């Protein structure tokens, strides 16, 4: 028998107690995995939006307007800016869009995207059902939005007291765009009472052109009015949101460490006190304190790593279930190595930290006491 196999066997002597500890720590681990996957999903879908249809950067107003969630909190600006940007050198295309929230019966934050048809192919928009919007009162709806509000081709939707007909369902592969509905720019401007304005310009540069150079140039030239966003960190509000999500995720991880740690300390202390005699015998047969220390900490780590494996699986299944039942519309969870690595690092730390005190207790037991104990 190897020392390691003893360490693997011991925690499961008292099966129900091992199981309870595993459930306790497993819940924490599952939460960490789930939150990580959802946070990363939110961040990556926001990143996607910035690069809708393969655009290299987005131009928005310098002015902030936090009521406008659709465009990451920047105010709308005059659509003539689009032509100025399009005329800059090395620009392949520039599409003016209006992204706004409209209250509907089904969704108080329904996203309406004003985008003219000539730009559809630029954002990789494909009609998967029905046809493109042709009449003024027609809209096309994103696949995700269609699933969420349960409306499809032929149905009508009431936006701002006016009926619109859904002429088709589209998909772009970008979850933020697929969560809304699209109609002509002027219709959305009208809906939002914001004629002649847009919320952002999606820009694609020529092949081999230097994005940084172009954005710098635009920032210099139009910096008083506009700002360019090439990555999420360029947006203050999103940056804060990401920080907050990450912070919350870490706070919950820390909580899991503390709660799981207390649980495992209790479990291991009980296990040590039940085995006072046995530990005395181990000392009597020549085991060093170090070996006893490693054994107890090892047993603790076996429990927490088992919880790590089970918790990761449960976390994954949980997130997939939320996605499957459409409880997180628009969020596509993202699993990275780090999502699971973090869970295992937490499990390992909880195991070691939680095992230390009981292990030290075990080595401090005088061997004679251990043998007298009955």
């Amino acid at each position, binding site marked *: 028998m190897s020392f390691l196999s003893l360490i693997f066997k011991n925690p499961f002597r008292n099966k129900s107690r091992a199981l309870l500890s595993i459930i306790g720590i497993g819940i924490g681990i599952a939460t960490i995995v789930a939150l990580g996957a959802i946070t990363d999903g939110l961040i990556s879908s926001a990143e996607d939006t910035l690069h809708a249809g393969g655009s290299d950067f987005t131009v928005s107003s310098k002015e902030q307007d936090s009521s406008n969630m659709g465009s990451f909190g920047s105010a709308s600006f005059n659509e003539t800016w689009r032509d100025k940007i399009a005329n800059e050198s090395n620009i392949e295309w520039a599409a003016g869009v209006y992204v706004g929230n409209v209250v509907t019966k089904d969704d108080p934050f329904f996203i309406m995207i004003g985008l003219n048809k000539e730009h559809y192919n630029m954002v990789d928009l494909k009609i998967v059902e029905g046809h493109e919007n042709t009449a003024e009162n027609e809209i096309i709806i994103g696949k995700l939005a269609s699933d969420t509000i349960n409306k499809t081709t032929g149905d009508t939707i009431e936006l701002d007291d006016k009926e619109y007909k859904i002429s088709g369902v589209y998909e772009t592969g970008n979850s933020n765009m697929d969560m809304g509905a699209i109609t002509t720019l002027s219709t959305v401007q009208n809906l939002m009472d914001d004629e002649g304005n847009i919320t952002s310009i999606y820009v694609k540069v020529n092949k081999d052109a230097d994005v940084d150079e172009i954005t710098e140039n635009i920032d210099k030239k139009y910096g008083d009015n506009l700002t360019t966003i090439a990555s999420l960190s360029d947006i203050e509000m999103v940056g804060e949101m990401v920080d907050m999500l990450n912070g919350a995720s870490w706070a919950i991880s820390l909580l899991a460490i503390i709660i799981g740690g207390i649980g495992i300390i209790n479990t291991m202390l009980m296990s040590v006190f039940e085995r006072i005699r046995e530990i005395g015998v*181990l000392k*009597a*047969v*020549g*085991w060093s304190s170090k*070996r006893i220390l490693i054994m107890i900490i090892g047993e603790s780590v076996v429990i927490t790593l088992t919880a790590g494996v089970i918790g990761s699986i449960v976390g994954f299944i949980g997130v997939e279930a939320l996605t499957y039942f459409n409880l997180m519309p628009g969020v596509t969870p993202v699993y990275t190595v780090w999502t699971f690595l973090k869970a295992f690092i937490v499990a390992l730390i909880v195991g070691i930290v939680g095992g230390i005190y009981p292990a030290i207790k075990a080595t401090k037991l005088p*061997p004679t006491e251990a043998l007298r104990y009955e």
Partner: protein
Amino acid sequence: MENIAQIRNLKKSYENGNIKALNGIDLDIKRGEFVSIIGPSGSGKSTLLNMLGALDIPDSGEIKVADYDLTKNKNLNEFRGKKIGFIFQLHNLIPNISACENVEIPMFAQKISSKEMRNKSLSLLEIVGLKDKAEMLPNKLSGGERQRVAIARALANNPSIILADEPTGSLDSKTSNKILKQLTRLHEEENVTLIIVTHDMNVAKLADRVIEVLDGKILSKNDDSLLDSEISI
């Protein structure tokens, strides 16, 4: 013959000095000797045995066992592992591992492979007549069988001294005879030093020498002796 254990004026008290468990013990034990320790309950027999096995630290006096100075030495676990084989009144086997694995437990400190450990364990179980029960868990064995596994475990690291505290105390007389035979055979064939604490006069008499402890002291030859009066307590 040289002494394997040498004890001078050894003292040990408990409860802030109120209980004098050992009150000035002087004792020499020769290599290869079979010694039994008798005395009334609470006289200090187990305490003395624990001192010999470095399970407890004396308050004062000298104790040298198998060339280790137990009052100074820091590597007491090494001493226990290499020199001493303990057998307790209760077998104290680990319940969730097999008889064979229990015998392997003391071998972890040695740098030998799992396979070698297992082979050694099986040969020790053969000596105590339990090779066929090697894979059984302790709770599937009888009391006598468990105690024989404990003997095999005590032999795991080829100790120079076997210390046994009431090794047959919890067994019936037939089983206890069997166990004692095995211990005495080990003593005779392997020249192991054997020190047995016992209540049983019949057990005590098997030894080369009987030591009587009373109130933490060893009775000298001319004191009133339990042996002379043939009282079995």
